């Protein structure tokens, strides 16, 4: 029952923050930090436990909370990133008005996600899923102004998703008359394929929306760029991954390995969707001019990688998918926090065309963003590399080169837009109006420091996280990868980071010595620059706006977001139809009375002729 008491303690804590915040403001920050840290500590202590408790009886359904290796890993990332982003938002939210509301909702989202991951049966899974959706809605629309349409789009799509999931759960309940996940996997074998496909479609609508797979992705970019930065770090770091968790749960825990991959054509459809989800948003991200919208599109693309990993079905690809989920949560949260620090210092300006040269003023944030970008691209010695390597290896060796092509092109697209992010914010000329920008405060630096060390740490020693993932794969029914501390040993080409690390270190030392042997270079400021003999003008002398103009002209015609246009058109159609329906109530009593008598007449007429009733 400890699990249940933990959840209750967290919910009560969240309410306490809101009401305590009203009376004496200082308490709420401390309370938020303490609660999130306790949650993290508590989940960390639960390592290796595997039990299930029934905490509530709801309308005849027994609700369970369970913990096993699979949910432990997700729970750990959720609580860890939640703790870090709350610390980040201490200074980010200091001057804003009603931040008690913000902290309460922040904790609500964290606890709801924790609940989803710990849910033992589908009903409690659904309940926590709903609580997560509406608390996210409140948080996205926190910044008023243009955030409202974005949050409206989010909440409508997530309601559609969760209701289709509810139908799926109940339909499954009728087939197997149990909702407990552990029992489901045994009984599902006896159900005919048609029903299983129907249930899979319903569930994948809900998880697809949350995971922003292509046809359901258009709520994500507006929602991310409007949400406050610490929350969008969580939003893109973990909240997207609830879709991932759902898919894993559905494919490998509930339905089980052998059935899911014999359903005709399902994996092909999902793989093609994943490939499109990688390419299309990556090239859209290249053309964005707002930092957070760029990162949002990149989240959609990276979610495509994870989705590809999961649905491809070999143990390497599933391990790659889960590991990429872990990595993406870390470096995407890091990049959002870095952009948040910039936004905090420039009082809300994050348009890529008007920033530049911040490396001189905020070097630490630059280092954090650089490491995050390296992880995002997947350079060797960062954690992104290992997980992408796993996914590519299976794609190539299991004979699907076109999917591998989509994934590899995604990497190069990532390089372009992550360099654009770094160049337009940090490199180039520092505009005059940002002369007196100070460094990011310590409470912002600490989370960034931790996250960047983890990226490098997991990059060099991928064995540590891979052991946990091995346990998860075994629980799914695959046979484990033989993982050494530094990489993966397998017959068809193995990967060990140790000699990459050794080689880079040796060469690095040699080249630095070679570089140091030259004469000492003169440090010079940004105005002593080659400009064909003339002096450098003070105001705007940097080429940052529309950084990839030729690519923009080349790709622009292909990249209109048709899906978004389709959604908006259908919404307008429904609204028009509703207006039409309201016209029935004309307002004249005569027509009302005519309705009544008509109803009576029709009833009797039908009964007389066909005696239906």
């Amino acid at each position, binding site marked *: 029952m400890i699990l249940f008491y933990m959840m209750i303690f967290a919910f009560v804590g969240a309410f306490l923050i809101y009401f305590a915040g009203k009376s004496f403001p200082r308490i709420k920050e401390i309370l938020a930090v303490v609660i999130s840290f306790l949650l993290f500590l508590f989940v960390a202590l639960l390592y290796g436990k595997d039990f299930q408790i029934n905490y509530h009886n709801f309308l005849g359904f027994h609700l369970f909370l369970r913990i096993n290796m699979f949910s432990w890993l997700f729970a750990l990332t959720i609580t860890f990133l939640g703790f870090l982003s709350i610390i980040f938002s201490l200074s980010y939210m200091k001057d804003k008005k009603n931040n008690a509301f913000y902290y309460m909702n922040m904790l609500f989202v964290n606890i709801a996600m924790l609940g989803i991951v710990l849910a033992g049966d589908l009903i409690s899974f659904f309940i926590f899923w709903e609580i997560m959706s509406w608390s996210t809605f409140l948080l996205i629309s926190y910044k008023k102004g243009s955030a409202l349409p974005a949050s409206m789009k989010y909440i409508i799509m997530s309601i559609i998703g969760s209701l289709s999931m509810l139908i799926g759960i109940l339909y499954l309940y009728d087939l197997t008359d149990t909702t407990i996940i552990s029992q489901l996997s045994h009984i599902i074998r006896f159900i005919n394929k048609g029903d299983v496909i129907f249930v899979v479609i319903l569930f994948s609508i809900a998880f697809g929306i949350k995971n922003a797979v292509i046809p359901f992705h258009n709520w994500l970019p507006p929602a991310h760029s409007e949400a406050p930065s610490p929350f969008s770090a969580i939003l893109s770091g973990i909240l997207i991954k609830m879709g991932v968790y759902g898919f894993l749960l559905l494919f490998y825990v509930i339905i089980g390995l052998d059935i899911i991959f014999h359903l005709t054509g399902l994996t092909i459809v999902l793989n093609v969707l994943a490939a499109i989800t990688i390419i299309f948003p990556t090239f859209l991200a290249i053309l964005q001019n707002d930092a957070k919208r760029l990162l949002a599109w990149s989240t959609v693309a990276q979610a495509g990688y994870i989705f590809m990993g999961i649905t491809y079905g070999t143990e390497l690809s599933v391990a790659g998918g889960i590991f990429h989920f872990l990595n993406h949560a870390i470096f995407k949260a890091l990049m959002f926090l870095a952009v948040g620090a910039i936004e905090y210092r420039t009082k809300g300006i994050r348009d890529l065309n008007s920033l530049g040269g911040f490396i001189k003023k905020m070097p630490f944030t630059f280092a954090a963003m650089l490491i995050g970008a390296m992880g995002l691209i997947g350079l060797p010695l960062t954690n992104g590399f290992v997980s992408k390597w796993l996914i590519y290896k299976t794609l190539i060796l299991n004979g699907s080169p076109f999917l591998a092509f989509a994934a590899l092109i995604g990497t190069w697209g990532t390089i372009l837009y992550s360099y654009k992010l770094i160049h337009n914010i940090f490199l180039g000329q520092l505009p005059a109006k940002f002369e007196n920008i100070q460094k990011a405060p310590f409470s912002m630096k600490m989370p960034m420091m931790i996250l960047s060390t983890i990226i490098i740490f997991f990059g060099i020693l991928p064995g540590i996280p891979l052991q946990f993932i091995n346990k998860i794969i075994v629980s799914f029914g695959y046979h484990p990868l033989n993982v050494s501390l530094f990489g993966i040993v397998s017959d068809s080409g193995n990967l060990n980071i140790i000699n990459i690390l050794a080689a880079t270190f040796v060469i690095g030392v040699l080249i630095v010595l070679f570089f140091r042997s030259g004469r000492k270079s003169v440090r010079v400021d940004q105005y002593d620059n080659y400009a064909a003999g003339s002096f450098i003008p003070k105001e705007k002398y940097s080429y*940052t706006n529309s950084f990839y103009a030729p690519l923009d002209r080349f790709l622009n015609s292909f990249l209109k977001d048709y899906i978004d246009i389709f959604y908006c058109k259908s919404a307008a159609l429904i609204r028009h139809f509703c207006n039409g329906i309201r016209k029935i109530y004309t307002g004249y009593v005569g027509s009302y009375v005519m309705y009544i008598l008509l109803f009576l007449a029709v009833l009797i007429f039908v009964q007389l002729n066909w005696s239906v009733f």
Partner: protein
Amino acid sequence: MNILLMILSAIISLVTGMFFLGLARKIMAMIHWRYGPPIYQPLIDVIRYFHQRAVSHGFIFDLGIIISLIGSLLVVFFLPLGNISSFSNSGGLLVILYILILSPLGLALSSGESANPNASIGISRKLILTLSYEFVLIIILLSLMSQYQTISLQEIVMLQARKVWSFASWKLILPGIAYLLILPAMLGFRPFEIAGASQEISAGPSVEFGGKYLALNTINHGLLHFITIALFVNLFLGGGDLFGIFDSISGTFWGSFVSLIIFLIKMILIFVISVFINAVFPRLRLEQATKYILYYPLSIAIVGLIIVVAIN
């Protein structure tokens, strides 16, 4: 033993890289019907750059160019030269593809830090050009990998040594042609010298590179030539093997020495062809270059991939 191989392949690549630069200038001079500088002129230039007091724009300005050189040197260790190969069994082509990213990224970081619009324009052109030819390169590598069913370059070279060169085997002729078509773009030679255009954007990314930075940049430039052509020779021309003539002495020291010589000869041959192309063509605009690359080589490569996938 591995360390020895590492040092050896590093020396080979540096020397041949500088030799390639000198050779290119010499051949260009010959074509212009003039004497041209001695072959070791790039070496003199590098020594002179080294003794100049450079100008630096910040920490990342130095770090970027170092990362770029590390990236290029690192790739050399993963490339089998003849049958000298130090690391080619740890990670194979995927690792090479990823480490190839390191060098342009490092250059981009340092030139971005130099806060000069010419550099930024140069870098954005370079990245767009690289993106366009990466489309083709990835398809070529995929067709090779799925043809030989392995991701390690070492095995591909061994298979080619035993069987026929992949440039000769009818299934892989199309990827070979596609690779040759994008070779000038990868080397940064004339038709696609868009990033480093010296007149338009005054040497593009390296506008602020002075003394030792320019030295590192030239060495890096030479290394990139070496890597690109070594990759081509390994993938398509069977590495250090000449139709199995020298199989008898393949195991011994002399065997690997001869295979190295053959490997270098093949590389020089390819390099000379691309220098000829460089001497003759005008510089394309970026849109023209991307349109060209994404129409002709890409379609050839895709057809090649389809053939390979269809066969097995």
